[in-house]
């Protein structure tokens, strides 16, 4: 299961025991710099550096990382190709006019804007993957509590997170049972099987919900959902490189902005 693997990867990451705040500063800082940068070089540097950090000291499997990037990469490339023809401005670089009513044009303006979109998506996706692959969701809940997100919302998120895996496992079992009995061998059969899967999943989720209330009652539920207050301390040896890196990236952005103004 992909979800299990992602969570497992985060649990086993070499950065697992680094303070969550430090990791969030690195990822969110990179993400903001990628977003505000009008030059592709900043997201490109950010993406490459964070990828290398994830793979080499972070011990993330390059294969798994490549597979993860493939999803957004395909989506981004398709979107950028559309943008190339959709946006305008500047000189025409390439024109495709097979029939009078179809006029596909790539201009210098559309190329520049598509390139910056491509690199921003690249840099931002990798910044988000950095969090996903180094910080288990349970640590994020803890962080959310510290920054003052309403406790009711966090409790709800924790229960949902716990039950995602249970519901997913149930769905997988039902799907396997259907596949074993050729439930998806024909298109109509597949539609019927899928609707049955949804129905069964609804019933079993309902039962799981009742059992959840039962289990909470058995343990005297009184509105309190304990949090995992085992936070890693902030360490200078991890915070300092993060600050230096973000400072360097911001410096590059500043230099490039200044040059372009001049």
């Amino acid at each position, binding site marked *: 299961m992909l979800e*299990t693997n992602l*969570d*497992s990867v985060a*649990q086993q990451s070499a950065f697992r025991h680094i303070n969550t705040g430090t990791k969030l500063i690195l990822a969110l800082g990179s993400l903001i710099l990628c977003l505000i940068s009008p030059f592709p070089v900043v997201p490109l540097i950010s993406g490459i550096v964070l990828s290398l950090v994830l793979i080499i000291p972070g011990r993330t499997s390059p294969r798994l990382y490549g597979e993860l990037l493939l999803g957004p990469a395909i989506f981004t490339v398709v979107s950028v190709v559309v943008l190339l023809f959709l946006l305008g401005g500047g000189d025409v670089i390439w024109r495709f006019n097979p029939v009078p009513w179809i006029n596909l044009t790539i201009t210098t303006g559309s190329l520049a804007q598509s390139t910056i979109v491509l690199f921003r998506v690249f840099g931002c996706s990798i910044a988000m993957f950095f969090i996903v692959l180094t910080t*288990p*969701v*349970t640590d994020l*809940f803890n962080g959310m509590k510290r920054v003052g997100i309403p406790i009711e919302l966090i409790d709800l998120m*924790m*229960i949902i*997170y*716990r039950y995602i*895996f*249970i519901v997913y*496992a149930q769905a997988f079992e039902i799907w396997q049972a259907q596949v074993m009995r050729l439930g998806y061998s024909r298109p109509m059969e597949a539609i019927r099987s899928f609707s049955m899967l949804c129905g069964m999943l609804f019933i079993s989720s309902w039962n*799981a919900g009742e*059992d*959840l209330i*039962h*289990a*909470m*009652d*058995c*343990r*005297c*539920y*009184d*509105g*309190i*959902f*304990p*949090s*995992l*207050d*085992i936070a890693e301390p902030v360490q200078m040896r991890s915070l300092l490189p993060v600050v230096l890196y973000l400072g360097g990236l911001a410096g590059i952005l500043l230099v490039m902005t200044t040059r372009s103004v001049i």
Partner: protein
Amino acid sequence: MNSKIILEAREVRYRYPGNLEAIKGISFHMRRGEKIALVGPNGAGKSTLLQMFNGMIRPTSGTMLFDNEPIRYDTSSLRQIRKRVGFVLQNPDRQIIAPTVYQDVAFGPANLGYDEQAIRQAVALALRQVGLTGFERRPPHQLSGGEKKRVAIAGVLAMDPDVLVFDEPTSGLDPSGSEDLMELLDELNHDGKTIVISTHDVELAYPWAERAILLADGQIIREDVPDVAFGNTKFVRMAHLSVPTLLELSAELGKRGFTIPERKPRSVLDMVHVIESHLHGSCCHPAPGTITVGNVDGGEASYLTAWVKARPGIVAGAMGSRAKQYAAQEQIALEFTYGVIDKCILRALRGQDSLILTNGSMVSRVAVRVEAYCKESGNSIGVTSLNTTDQASVTGIAHDETKKDDPSY
């Protein structure tokens, strides 16, 4: 055993919406510190009855009593009863509600209003009891079935209940996991908890329980010590069960002229005793082996490891979660992890020495069990405590051993 009645049912009945009567007038009681098995086929009403123990289900008629007081169903009384009667569901995935082990185990204490320090202590103790220290940050979906079951038990233990109720405790576990779990239940019982399990596995219930209650179609068919409860084929058939293999075998041996003691064999050790006594007059080697008991909680655990390493051929078994953890940590190969004392007695009867690793509270249990066996069988087996900090409990032939005599130290 403290014989005070802790839970009692008086003519309880329960009818589900839809008019299905699941419990049809049941009366029984359980004493503090007892190990009771509710045995019956699927649909017998076991789970429904168990849920009455902590007030999850209110009987349609009749009375449930806890500590000789009728259970009240107002919110505050139910909190009290649920604190004192811990319930472990059949499916741990349905019981574990939090995204990490720590949070799940802390759920009960937090809702009982413990302060942060007390919660941490309760969680640490419960995880230690079930042998899951170090699992605090693990998410439940990354645990094995046996580990999930232990987390579910720890979640209940953290509330420090007097009674532990297990619905089909070994369901979904492999044989080794089942053995470990039954060993854990014995350990908890040894620590003073009253344990009730529901099962349809007669082979599990027969050697484990002190009392068996056969249930079928919402009614009690028979309630007695296991060899009597399971010994009557008529009742066993009425409950859609089968006679336990050991009991069936002893009945067959009895018909073939073997002398079967009044207390029917409940373990391989008992059965070997019956067979060997008949064939050879005695089942004991002329020079029986010694059982050495190592306390992993003692202050000299390093000595224990050195002692084992100095005897590469020694057969070792571990009783209790902490002892098993210690063995894994020190890379001590374990031959036995369940029914350890009986298996070591069998070794001793063949003239072989063995070692039992266990923790503080369980050390005395070895001597008591061996002494009881020796008294019953007339054999003599030496039990010696390895750590010099413990009082050596010696039964029969004594083989005193101290650090001074040990060349490995």
